[in-house]
């Protein structure tokens, strides 16, 4: 974990210091960000976009670090990915979740892959569509099993559609995304997978709407439907975000996250901050 953290910091420094490396395959602010599970996306939701500005002829290397702090918990997610020829994305992320009042944390590793099936987020007639998987495994079995989960690892499969409409909102660019995810992860996997005797895989809907107020500033909202498998209730996630993209190598997002009930504590609201870099 510590190694990954140092690596990420080095990466991010490199990215911000060097602005001439990025591919020019996409227009600024259209490559999307990296979401909290390491996939190219918004903040909470994976999108059809692949991070980085690579095109059919190039690749890019990306890294992110996201921090979420709500009333009783905090989460740190850190990861890196490569986007190959604007076709395939491979990602790893490490999440570490903890109770503010207590010691110890829950750690989860997520390995992901995504393939762009169709389209270009701006230029094709229909939205860009991608298919992705996220394989998650908890480092420690005890908590998930004690809470009534069936497994300590699991796989999500999702299909996402994303589109930018140039000038659609009285001249401003509009971006939207809709994702359907097949999952049995409890609180993203941090509280295990499925429930005691039941695999519990089901379809969840997630979406994003945003407006780009200029080439560097986006504002929007996200929604992520959540399953409710174990005894401790789980609620849908929502967030309102502002993203600043000074150049093609760096982005920063600040959001207000409304994560509902988590592990018995209700109304978990707070701040989400994420920085991303791409080379």
């Amino acid at each position: 974990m510590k190694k990954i953290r140092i690596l990420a910091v080095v990466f991010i420094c490199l990215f911000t210091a060097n602005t001439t490396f990025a591919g020019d395959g996409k227009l600024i602010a259209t490559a999307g960000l990296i979401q909290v599970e390491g996939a190219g996306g918004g903040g909470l939701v994976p999108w059809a976009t692949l991070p980085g500005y690579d095109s059919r002829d190039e690749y890019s290397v990306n890294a992110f670090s996201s921090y979420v702090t709500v009333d009783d918990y905090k989460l740190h997610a850190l990861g890196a990915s490569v986007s190959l020829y604007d076709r395939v994305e491979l990602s790893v992320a490490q999440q570490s979740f903890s109770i503010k009042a207590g010691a110890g944390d829950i750690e989860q590793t997520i390995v992901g892959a995504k393939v762009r099936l169709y389209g270009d987020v701006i230029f094709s007639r229909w939205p860009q569509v991608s298919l992705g998987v996220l394989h998650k495994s908890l480092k420690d079995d005890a908590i998930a099993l004690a809470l009534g989960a069936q497994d300590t690892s699991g796989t999500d499969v999702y299909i996402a559609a994303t589109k930018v409409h140039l000038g659609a909102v009285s001249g401003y660019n509009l971006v939207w995304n809709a994702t359907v995810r097949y999952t049995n992860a409890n609180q993203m996997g941090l509280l295990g997978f499925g429930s005691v005797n039941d695999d519990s895989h089901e379809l969840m809907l997630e979406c994003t709407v945003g407006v780009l107020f200029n080439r560097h500033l986006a504002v929007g909202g996200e929604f992520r439907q959540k399953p409710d498998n174990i005894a401790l209730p789980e609620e849908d996630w929502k967030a309102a975000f502002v993203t600043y993209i000074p150049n093609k190598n760096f982005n920063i997002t600040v959001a207000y996250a409304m994560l509902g009930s988590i592990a018995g504590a209700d109304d978990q609201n707070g701040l989400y901050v994420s920085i991303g870099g791409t080379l």
Partner: protein
Amino acid sequence: MKFIQQLIILLAILLGLSACSSTSTTTLYDELGGETKIREIAENLVLEFEMDEYILPYYEGSDINRFVEKLTEYICEVADGPCVYTGRSMVDVHTGMNITESHYNRLVDLSINAMDKAGIPHRTQNKLLARLAPTRKDMLYR
């Protein structure tokens, strides 16, 4: 799910707003500032790619005056101005160049610079880009 409804309503309102603003009678041609401004954009674009090592090689041997002339006509026409484009079709001109996605988007970036330098507002720029975008498929990898 309520939040989804709110997002959809927000989307509808945003699109509704844009529908209202587009019922006004001024054309994009007027919004851009007419033919003088459009010519300025075309001339700025030439200055941009003359300094760009990726794009410049494509224009080696081109008649730049003709290019400015035809591009001005072309933009004027797609922006609903009072011009008729008399150049070659987008497919014909760009076939044989093997234009890649990166080069296309590079040129769009340069066009944005050209519009910035001509003082075209961000929202007007987006509207013009939206009208140019549909021909992208006619020029890539040919």
